[in-house]
């Protein structure tokens, strides 16, 4: 037990800095392979990890979609990366269009990006600037989208 505590303390006491976003092959909404790098190079944008079955994720993306047009005028851009596996992947397109979401959608059906970034739960949001992760946020409460929007303005 003591050793586990030591391990946890050791790993948590490390100071950390900015991390590079790995360049993995994801899929576009039709299942075609796409390099993540092609979407993230030379700009600042928000990556939001979500799934059709994740209530808070859908709430978060709904909330941002409501004001997306205004945000876009200020250079805001969001890519929604779906973690849906083959159980629910076919629902992604119907949901995105049904909800009329304005986002670029990428698919990560066997969670390779999640494994690289070592996060456990969705919703999980990153702000990426020139391929470097400059901000992370996990979970969603009504209104927490405002913080992401604020951060984006500061970091842009």
């Amino acid at each position: 037990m003591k050793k586990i505590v030591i391990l946890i303390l050791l790993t948590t006491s490390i100071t950390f800095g900015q991390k590079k976003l790995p360049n993995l092959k994801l899929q576009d909404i039709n299942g075609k392979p796409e390099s993540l790098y092609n979407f993230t190079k030379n700009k600042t944008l928000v990556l939001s990890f979500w799934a059709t079955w994740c209530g808070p994720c859908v709430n978060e993306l709904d909330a941002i979609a409501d004001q997306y047009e205004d945000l876009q005028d200020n250079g805001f851009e969001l890519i929604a990366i779906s973690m849906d596996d083959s159980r629910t992947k076919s629902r992604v397109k119907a949901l995105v269009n049904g909800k009329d979401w304005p986002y670029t959608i990428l698919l990560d059906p066997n969670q390779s990006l999640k494994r690289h970034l070592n996060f456990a739960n969705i919703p999980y949001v990153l702000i990426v600037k020139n391929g470097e992760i400059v901000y992370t946020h996990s979970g969603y409460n009504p209104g927490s989208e405002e913080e992401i929007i604020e951060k984006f303005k500061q970091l842009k």
Partner: protein
Amino acid sequence: MHFKKYIFTILFLVSFYVYSQSSQKLNIGLETIMQYYVDDPVTGNFNGTNRFRSNNYFKFDYNVSKFSFGLQLESYYSQALLNYSPHLDKKIGIGTYYAAYKNKKLAVTLGYYYEQFGSGLILRSWEDRQLGINNALRGIRLKYYPTNKLNFTILYGQQRVGFKVSEGQIFGFDTNFDASSEQISLLMGLSYVGRYQNFKPLYTIDADHNRDFNPLTSAISGRINIAQGHIYANLEGVWKSKDNLVELGNIIGNKAFYGNALQLEAGYSKKGFGFTTTFRRLENMTFYADRQANGNTYNELIINYLPALTRQQDYSLANIYVYSAQAKLSFNPLNKAGEIGYQTDIYYKIPKKTFLGGKYGTMVALNISNWYGLAADFLTPYKRINTKFLTFGKAYFKDFTLEVRKKLNKNNKMIYTFIHSYYNKAMVEETQGEVKSNVVAAEWSHKFTGYKSMRAELQHLWTKEDKGNWAAALAEFNFNTHLGIFMGDMYNYGNPDENHQNHYYNFGGSYTKNGNRYAVSYGRQREGLLCVGGVCRVVSAATGFTFSANISF
């Protein structure tokens, strides 16, 4: 002594991290879930050996130019959490490790890797810590991309089970070809998966008893995905060579059957409207790295991914009667050959500034799923079977869900859900009974000023069968975007047995910062099925404290 070794490994990695920090090439992930079980007359006194248990995962990934290396240490102290496989009971051990090389055309991985062919009907290795699944393959994998329209994967490995690997050896080949043009997206794929396990069958009295045993079982699949404009369709078919019948963990050497799967998805969507439907037929499609693992309750040694194709429900009462895919062929205790059925989803946005749409528009989502046993003639005493191609047998599960999401104004939002379902408990859980139920849920979320917010749920389940009616409520309050508390209760007030009209309450809080999350809670866990991503695990009733943390660097 082993402990020391691992501590040194960690220290080494940590110092390495500090060293390499300037280049930020090391990623570290830490997840811990600790539980302390208490005695509770409702969920039963705790009669296990260890009241304190924890699952801890330490993951390290290091990248340097085209190479990457990784290690996942796992610690189950004093043993794995309740209902996890006893194969995981190890104080500390190396779960997975890998070394990989990648350039534009070629990727090579040695050690443990995760892979999926097509939709996973033929092969999927993945990790789901909540379910206790990690069926990574240990061996070698090569990926080759001669052009960006064509790729090949070839792999060999044994599957992880606990801190060991399967007896069975897995061989795989996969290729994908992109034949898209400007107007149409057209993707095709072919896969092969072989399992070699030279296992001695149970009956070895004479040669005849093993006449149908072949150490190699092969599966082949083909798929095609088409999308054009608003329409798309995906078709996938799998054929599996003769695989021995497994009854109660025993391999029957003189009984082997072919398996197959067919899945068709089609959809239409445009701005404000989405429709998608999936048909699937599974016949004797369970596929395990070790034959004798067939049907094990911990979902260990699974080669392929056969999720239940139903809506994954958000609310606790809607997760009491949950379906899991029925792909196994069996004669004992029940005659089952597989499943057949479909599900359909419709998403529609009632436009803004209409009577039903209001100021913001109203989102409507509908799901209908219907699953049946695969119809077949069973000659049970001889263990022979004659399956029908497209005939629906006994109903296993039916579900109708309607969800309406409505934003009332800037600060208030409502979600209403109605679910009608039929669950054939006798056939799915191989126990008794059938359950028809209706669930209604209402969820309200409200924003205060300064990132304060709250969320409340009310739910009710009506049924005349099984454990009768339930009511549930949940309230959540967030002080800011970092700190939140919740309390909830599920009350089985309609249980025909008055001594079991139990409350299942839970309360706790969580703190989130920089993508890291810490949570504490206390409460009762209901006995039943825990399902994530269409895969379920049986959990027993328990009461206790939980602490969890997810941290990444």
